[in-house]
């Protein structure tokens, strides 16, 4: 399982241009964010110019990985060993971060112009930069301390972004989020301290060699797991998620739901595959909670009257799909085929959901901005007036429902196959129930939209491109379904 995360020695040293690409990928978002705080962009085109080098760095790293396989960087700074690695998975996640981050940044100027955002708006940019840089670091880091630094940076910046709207409700929700995030970090740190005290090392690769099952590993895994589950809003620790999104700005919600919570999940799976490679019960507990998450998240989204709550609750349910896959990834005696299938399905689901959820938040934000209403009832008649926003919402929700040919479908197919082969029938049931529940709340929304008897309101026109950015993300999520072969191939390459 460890090798799947690229925790082994590389064959080739990275070339000089690759160093630069790495530097750009890690540092430039931060730098650009600072710059934008000084000179806030009013239009989209400066943002386009700025995101070109960032994306280019990601593509360069991709091609470097394509040629040389796994890449590793080592530094020795004042006696502290620092190391980063780049494997297929981290390249994919990095690119995903850059694309979604770029889209969110592109969306921001128009959004800020149209909604009355107040004087704090310019601070959104540096915070966004921090989040993107920290995320990039998390995908590449190979030791517990760097991971912690990335996690903390990202978490604090995310809290800041979510509180920017300055509404009382946002502040309350944000403070609660801050408290929980700090608690999560603390628990994580305790786990790390335990590991350091017992085994005396923090680098993941070395740790994987020395860790042996026993109370220390279990306890550390439990602490780390609890801390990260809180940050990732895994059921039943998800209650903070909805109020936070309810009041946040649209691009912030998009970034947060698509990327930030995924980072915690990524770290969780990575560390557990080191600490608990053969645990039987722990992954099953997660999976059972995942089953509950699917049902509970679905019910929450189904019963709500608020559009943003619907989108946010659906995240809880969708994370359940990923949790249900845990026993196929971790545990004793998993046959190679279902494990490989589950591995592919897990990441495809994660990526598909990231793109789709970002698109969906943007589409929801557009609908709310244009209609001035944030309830489902307020959407009545939008199918005639705002067809494009609704279409984007629809395409994104196809991915969430897991209907073909979207990436949600292909991911579900992979997971289902893995579950059928390893005969985990209750997990199969969870996935299928999830599909129906998702369809139920999605089409409940569409039912309001298709109502033709609704009175007509005046709609605020949207800034150009706001729908198109969301559409692009939704189409990426959609296209990943049939074009899944390439990214999945990338994830498999580079085995030792």
């Amino acid at each position, binding site marked *: 399982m460890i090798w799947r995360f690229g925790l082994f020695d590389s064959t080739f040293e990275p070339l000089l241009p690759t160093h630069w690409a790495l530097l750009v990928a890690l540092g430039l978002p931060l730098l650009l964010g600072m710059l934008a705080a000084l000179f806030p962009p009013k239009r989209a085109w400066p943002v386009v110019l700025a995101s070109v080098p960032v994306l280019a760095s990601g593509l360069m790293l991709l091609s470097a990985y394509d040629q040389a396989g796994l890449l590793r960087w080592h530094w020795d700074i004042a006696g502290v060993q620092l190391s980063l690695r780049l494997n297929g998975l981290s390249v994919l996640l990095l690119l995903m971060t850059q694309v979604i981050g770029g889209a969110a940044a592109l969306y921001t100027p128009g959004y800020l112009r149209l909604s009355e955002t107040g004087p704090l708006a310019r601070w959104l940019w540096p915070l966004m930069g921090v989040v993107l840089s920290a995320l990039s670091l998390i995908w590449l880091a190979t030791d517990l301390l760097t991971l912690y630094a990335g996690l903390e940076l990202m978490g604090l910046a995310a809290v800041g972004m979510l509180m920017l709207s300055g509404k009382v409700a946002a502040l309350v929700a944000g403070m609660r989020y801050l408290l929980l995030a700090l608690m999560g970090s603390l628990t994580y740190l305790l786990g790390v301290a335990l590991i350091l005290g017992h085994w005396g090392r923090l680098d993941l690769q070395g740790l994987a060699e020395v860790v042996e099952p026993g109370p220390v590993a279990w306890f550390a895994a439990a602490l780390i797991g609890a801390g990260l589950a809180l940050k990732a809003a895994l059921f039943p620790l998800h209650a903070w998620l909805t109020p936070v999104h309810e009041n946040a700005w649209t691009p912030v919600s998009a970034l947060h739901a698509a990327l930030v919570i995924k980072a915690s999940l990524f770290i969780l799976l990575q560390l557990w595959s080191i600490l608990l490679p053969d645990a039987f019960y722990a992954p099953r507990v997660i999976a059972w909670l995942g089953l509950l998450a699917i049902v509970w998240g679905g019910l929450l989204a189904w019963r709500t009257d608020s559009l943003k709550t619907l989108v946010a609750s659906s995240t809880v349910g969708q994370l359940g799909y990923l949790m249900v896959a845990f026993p196929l990834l971790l545990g004793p005696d998993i046959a190679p085929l279902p494990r490989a299938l589950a591995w*592919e399905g897990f990441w495809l689901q994660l990526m598909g959901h990231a793109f789709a959820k970002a698109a969906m938040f943007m589409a929801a934000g557009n609908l709310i901005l244009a209609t001035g209403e944030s309830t489902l009832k307020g959407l009545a008649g939008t*199918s*005639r007036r705002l*067809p494009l926003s609704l*279409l984007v919402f629809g395409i994104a929700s*196809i991915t969430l429902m897991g*209907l*073909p*040919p979207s990436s949600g*479908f*292909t991911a*579900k*197919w*992979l997971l*289902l*196959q893995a579950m*059928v*082969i390893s005969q985990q029938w209750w997990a*199969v049931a969870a996935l*299928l129930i999830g*599909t*129906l529940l998702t*369809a139920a709340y999605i*089409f409940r929304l*569409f*039912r309001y939209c*298709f*109502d*033709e*008897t609704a009175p007509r309101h005046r709609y605020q026109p949207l800034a150009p491109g706001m729908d198109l950015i969301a559409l692009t993300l939704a189409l990426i999520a959609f296209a990943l*379904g*049939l074009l*899944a*072969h390439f990214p*999945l191939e990338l994830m498999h390459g580079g085995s030792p």
Partner: protein
Amino acid sequence: MNAAWLPLTALATSLLVVVVIFALPEEARRLRTTINLMAAVVKIILVTLMVRRVAAGHEDIFSFQVIGGVDFVLRSDALGVMFAGLSSLLWLCTTIYAIGYLEGSANRKRFFGFFSLCVASTIGIALADNLFTFLIFYEMLTLSTYPLVVHNGTQQALDAGRVYLRYTLSAGVVLLLGTVLLYSLTGDQSFSSEEGLGDYLNDHRGLLTLIFALLVGGLAVKTAMVPLHGWLPRAMVAPAPVSALLHAVAVVKAGAFGILRVVYDLFGIELSVELGVITALAVAASFTIIYGSLRAIAQEELKPRLAYSTVSQVSYVILGIGLFGPFGTVGALAHLLHQGLMKVTLFFCAGNYAEELGIHRIDEMDGAGKRMPLTSIAFTIGAFGMIGLPPVAGFITKWYLGVGAIQAEMYWVVAVLVASSTLNAMYFLPIVHRLWFRSGPAHGKGSWPKEQRLGRFETHSWLLLPMVFTALVSLGAGLFAGLPFSPLDWAARVANGEYLP
């Protein structure tokens, strides 16, 4: 020589139209109409090309890998192009009809966009070469029909849409489960492979039966087999072209076609017989045929009566499979086309009566033959076909089914056929009688519910022409059944491929 572009272009034409229609503004009516009609014609040409190539023995394949062990494959084979031909021909007719029908109404961009997507899905279903590809387009069809069903946006339409989704999405989940189970057992199975699943029979008999039940159970919802038919009559609130689409071209046909694929091309007919599932299928189909007809008699409105008639008629296709003989198969396959032609005619007629005269109930139809002779003649042709009177196409089907039943020594099926024809006559002949032999508003007795003079002829010519055309084709398919490339001839060709190695 493999012309991979051919199935791909056939699919892409309709998909491209969808994109173009959504990109055009709502007001660009003329341009939209032109593009729509041109694409429909181009597709007919492409499908004709495919038919010729299949007739010459070429099967064109387009494929690429989606994930390890699962490919996306389009292949033009005899059964597939048969369905593709039906759908592309009727696409042209229904599009013309819909343009006339929706003139001046709102949301036409959305309507035609999803209408084209619906037909694109049908082509995908027709050309899909494995269950994975089939499933993709099958679900696409579900999604693209929803906006059409709720098009009017009334409470009733929205409720119907909800019921439709409840049935079809649940069925989709069942189908997905069956498909995944099958792939886990056997890996990727092409519909064109000669072996079928016979190798797995000894070790996995129970699992194979379960998979068959899941697949056919999932498909039976769209086929509207009793007791899974509840969505179909309710979906009648949709505009008439949508009903035509649901009943004749796309949705129920996709279900029936899927069952054909599963039985003939996936499991193979011998294996299906061996599993004992075929007889169960025949019994279920017979029950549906009788039940649908009985419910049709009870309806007092025209469109619901036609809807229940569809429930009954589509199951002839399934019954034909159940006879497991060449004649039954020919009957089943031919009926797939014949029912489509006749039902689309009937729905066009129902739409015309409703648009021109405001007629929705059957007792309002007295004497309509005088006022709308062409529509009424077309209706009569369709009705006679449904009853199975010569020389309309429906007669051919029933004849073949009857012969097949006798050959298979399943005499109870003959009884079902006779009973159902009698019932068909009981609910269609009174309408025909009212049309021609009763005097009504056209003879100066009372007035039509809501008369409009939509065109120079008895109604708008865009509404009239497609209906006349499909009525003539239904008649022609019966009269010239012996000619090459008639539905019957092509069905015989497909069946030969199935029974003669």
